[in-house]
């Protein structure tokens, strides 16, 4: 048994084939893996960086959108006369405007709605839009539009929506088709089990609320459209915009240089962008839209709420014999998906697994992918269940997980993982955390009690491989990197520049990154799904290596030696054989004559017959005040196998950020709808929707990179990080709370309000 190869008790993995020959990941690195500050830190901090919201063009108009204030209503009549005549108002669009009569698609479900759908199915549905010469005038004009609504019966909660006779959000009812996947025989698995547990876990609807609200600026030049967009993927936006306007892709330019966070909510083209482009065309002027904070709570996506019934069977030796998950979730008023099943199927070895999932419509904003869509929810259920099973069979929760670490993906015909760092995440994490000592000595008595918890996770998608990078080396030895990827705040530009620096020996300060512009950069997939580093860094490396190869060839010719005699360090060519010479790049004649060397790198396909996926284990220590329900997370350790750590600083940013977000999901964040009364969201603001603050994240915070030296996943040895970082967090906290109090909190978030109610119940009615 090698380090990353755990026992495969019963099943045989599919045959592994060797990875395609080519560049192998680095051994020792000089730049990659160091603590490199962001190359654009100064611009971002000083305010010099131009975000979409900062764009100002000559003659630019400002747009605002009138949104339905009801959860379910028909627009009967609209009176625009007052708004039309207000000073500075230049254009108004409604469902009656011929230019705005466009279908709207949700995934592959066909045109389920329209750009302005008079049948409004959620609070925040688009009703009209105004362009005016100032944002204030646009907002004032919205107030002057009178709309007569026919209010319709609505439904705000999953269970209500499933009832017989519930108001239908769409014709045909609220309940989607049950999607089932099954392997083995769960009945047999449960029969074999020594312990069978069943529990219903619930999670709340979480919102992305990125710092920069969604924004677009649109400008037409004849039939050519340019859009600045706060987006995670300029090419995705380009493609869909081209379709909407019937234009060739070449006529649509989308630019997204800087953007202030998305977490998935900026992975798709928004109605607001199409509306802005229409207004710009109608007025023949550039138009800008910046959504208000309230709008971002209502209509640009969320993580759906889920109700997950999980039944699990385990043998006394720790073998998981069966898992059965029945999940019902709601992605809101339109199909968006609320599936969560992946972890149950792939995180631990188990031969008998059944997952049944149903999406239900409710009259509320539609979900969008949110940082590891489905995974934190499933971890909330599965990882609490693992904890409960471990305690039932008297096994330590870390040991129990270690017993079930898979070396292959059970959802993909047992195809082996390139590496499974889960075991090391668990053991290293436990060691650094002091798990055994804490378990043995922690104080679980009295008013203020402590407890520790662990949870694990993995991410289930290896990412796209369609990415091309271009590296240009100038005669003065500085370099330009051209990539299509958006840097959504994660440090993409910095990490990619580090790859170039590694290969070309050019200092980071001398590398300029051009990115996220469909007209001037080459294709990259959207920055989401934890694929940005994985999809792009191998292409960047290949482009840099191409330049390097060409450069060394030229130098060898010029210096009259062989390429093997040369090395490239710190912006200079060095001869390895006598006579020892160091030639700075700007002194290299052959480079000066050519002015520039260009390298193009295309990313290679994934290894055949193997799956590269990241793993994680997180450990929490909490302190619960049993009189008040207040919980403090006092210590947190996160161990991540995301392959090679490219930059210690951005690694920490992702892990700490992911944990902070997981703490929100697990302890404070939830969309609250006025169910049964008005159906409106009551906490659509940053005070009532409670994102953790600096004092809510643990003071003692450690993150560990468990690098399994994956030589097969790709040429930079990287696996995804952004999403795994937030997957196990909430469950680790819930397990720690259980350890401290004996209360299994099945509903996320564990607010002090909820915990105190449970503690008070415990006092009266024994342990829950």
């Amino acid at each position, binding site marked *: 048994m090698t380090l990353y190869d755990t026992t495969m008790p019963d099943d045989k993995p599919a045959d592994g084939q060797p990875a395609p020959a080519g560049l192998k990941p680095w051994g020792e690195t000089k730049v990659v893996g160091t603590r490199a500050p962001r190359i654009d830190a100064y611009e971002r901090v000083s305010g010099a960086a131009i975000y979409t919201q900062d764009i100002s063009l000559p003659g630019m108009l400002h747009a605002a959108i009138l949104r339905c*204030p009801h959860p379910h209503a028909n627009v009967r009549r609209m009176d625009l006369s007052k708004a039309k005549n207000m000073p500075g108002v230049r254009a108004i669009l409604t469902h009656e405007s011929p230019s705005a009569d466009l279908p709207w698609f949700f995934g592959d479900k066909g045109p389920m709605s329209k750009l302005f759908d008079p049948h409004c199915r959620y609070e925040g549905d688009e009703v009209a839009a105004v362009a005016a010469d100032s*944002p*204030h005038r646009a*907002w*004032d004009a919205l107030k002057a539009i009178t709309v007569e609504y026919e209010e319709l019966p609505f439904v705000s909660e999953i269970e209500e929506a499933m009832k017989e006779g519930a108001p239908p959000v769409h014709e045909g009812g609220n309940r989607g088709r049950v999607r089932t996947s099954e392997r083995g025989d769960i009945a047999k698995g449960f029969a074999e089990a020594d312990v069978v547990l069943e529990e219903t876990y619930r999670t709340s609807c979480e919102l992305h609320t990125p710092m920069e609200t969604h924004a677009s600026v649109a400008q037409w030049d004849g039939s050519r459209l340019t859009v600045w967009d706060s987006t995670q993927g300029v090419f995705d936006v380009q493609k869909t915009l081209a379709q909407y306007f019937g234009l060739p892709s070449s006529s649509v330019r989308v630019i997204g240089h800087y953007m202030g966070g998305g977490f998935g909510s900026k992975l798709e083209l928004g109605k607001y962008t199409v509306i802005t482009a229409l207004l710009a065309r109608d007025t023949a002027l550039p138009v800008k839209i910046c959504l208000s904070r309230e709008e971002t709570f209502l209509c640009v996506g969320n993580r759906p709420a889920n109700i997950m019934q999980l039944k699990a069977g385990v043998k006394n030796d720790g073998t998981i014999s069966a898992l059965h998950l029945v999940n019902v979730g709601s992605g809101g008023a339109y199909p968006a998906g609320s599936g969560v099943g992946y972890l149950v199927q792939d995180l631990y070895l188990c031969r008998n697994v059944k997952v049944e999932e149903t999406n239900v419509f409710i009259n509320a904003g539609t979900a969008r992918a949110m940082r590891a869509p489905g995974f934190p929810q499933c971890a909330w259920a599965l990882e609490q269940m693992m904890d409960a099973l471990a305690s039932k069979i008297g096994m330590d929760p870390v040991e129990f997980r270690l017993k079930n670490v898979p070396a292959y993906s059970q959802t993909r015909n047992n195809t082996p993982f390139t590496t499974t760092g889960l075991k090391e995440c668990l053991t290293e994490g436990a060691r650094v955390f002091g798990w055994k000592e804490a378990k043995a000595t922690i104080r679980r008595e009295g008013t203020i009690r402590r407890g520790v918890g662990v949870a694990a996770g993995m991410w289930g998608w290896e990412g796209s491989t369609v990415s091309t990078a271009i590296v240009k080396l100038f005669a003065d030895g500085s370099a330009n990197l051209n990539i299509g990827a958006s840097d959504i705040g994660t440090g993409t530009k910095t990490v990619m520049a580090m790859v170039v620096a590694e290969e070309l020996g050019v200092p980071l300060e001398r590398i300029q990154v051009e990115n996220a512009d469909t007209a001037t950069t080459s294709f990259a997939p959207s920055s989401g799904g934890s694929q940005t580093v994985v999809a792009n860094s191998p292409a960047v490396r290949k482009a840099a290596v191409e330049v390097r190869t060409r450069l060394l060839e030229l130098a060898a010719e010029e210096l009259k030696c062989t390429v093997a005699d040369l090395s490239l360090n710190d912006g200079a060519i060095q001869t390895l054989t006598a006579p020892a010479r160091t030639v700075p790049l700007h002194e290299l004649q052959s480079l000066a004559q050519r002015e520039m060397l260009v390298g193009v790198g295309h990313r290679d396909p994934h290894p055949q017959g193997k799956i590269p996926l990241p793993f994680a284990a997180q450990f929490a220590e909490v302190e619960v*005040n049993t*009189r*008040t*329900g*207040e919980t403090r997370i006092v210590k947190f350790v996160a161990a991540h196998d995301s392959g090679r750590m490219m930059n210690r600083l951005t690694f920490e940013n992702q892990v700490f950020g992911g944990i902070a977000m997981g703490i929100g999901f697990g302890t*404070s964040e939830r969309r*609250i709808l*006025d*169910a*049964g*009364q*008005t159906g*409106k969201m*009551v*906490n*659509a*603001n940053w*005070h*009532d929707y*409670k994102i*953790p*603050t*600096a*004092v*809510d994240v643990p003071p003692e915070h450690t993150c560990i990179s468990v690098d399994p030296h994956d030589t097969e996943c790709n040429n930079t040895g990287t696996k995804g990080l952004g999403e795994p970082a937030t997957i196990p967090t909430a469950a680790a906290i819930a397990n720690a709370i259980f350890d401290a109090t004996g209360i299994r909190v099945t509903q996320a978030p564990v*607010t*002090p*309000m*909820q915990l*105190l*109610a449970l*503690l*008070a119940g415990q006092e009266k009615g024994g342990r829950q």
Partner: protein
Amino acid sequence: MIPKIAYARPHSLKEAVKELSAPGTIAHAGGTDLLGCLRDGIVTPEKVISLSGLSDLKGIARTGDGGLRIGALTTLAEVADDHVINEQFTALAEAAASAASPQLRNQGTLGGNLCQRPRCWYFRGEFHCRRKGGEICFAMNGRNEFHCIFGGQNCFIVHPSDSAPALVALEARVRIANSRGTRTIPLDSFFVDPAKDVTRENILRPGEIITEILLPAPVTQMRSSYRKARARGAWDFALSGVAIGLRFNGKRVDQARIVLSGVAPIPWRAVETEQALAGKILDGETVARAAESAVRSAEPLSDNAYKIHLTQGIVHESLMALRPE
């Protein structure tokens, strides 16, 4: 967006109260609450009168009788950091320090903190509720986990201020100015019960402002504290809070003031508890009984019964912490 408004910045109290006597005006101190109210359309004044030019209303000073005078425009940060307040009026320093966030405390004033509008999400949101002149209180049958468990009638807000209960516990008075002059009243009688008038939270009439907050001279053997429980660690209002002012006579409580926040439409005196403590030594049993008495008359709504346990818990914890060594 903030609607069109006129703005004036008078430099004397006389001018200010004159300006504010005109209909459609509203006072602006630090603006941390007012600007949000304007943006959300909670208040719709035509003219905003800034108090920031009234330098007499700033600062903390000793009064002749050994008490303290705190100008209404003193910021919460100044109150929280003041040495004398920390030493002698601890509850107030703790309350000011627990409010909002550092930025808001640097900008928000003590006077503004007492006069801020409630945070009920129906009142602040697009709901035409009773407090805004509508017919119904949405919290009664709606989402009410942050609403009151005492004194709810017609309307179930909680008073949002942290400083108010601390000041009431410390027996503060407020000076109110209008065009005819000034008067001082106990802060305890400043707040308006929704049963009396559901549209306002305090007794101020148009043209009236608070100019200063007066604290009586501290007696020896006085101990006070403010304990706040909230849903997240900062930038959050109280789920429940308790301000306690205890005068001791040796080990015995001579006089107690227990004022709750986050649980009632006004700073809520737990009178029964105050009486239960008078003359007692703070042993475990007395404290437990006192904490229980603090919530005896609570009437929770559908989602906020936890506040009963929470309030009992923090009263218990605070009383234990205030026991003389």
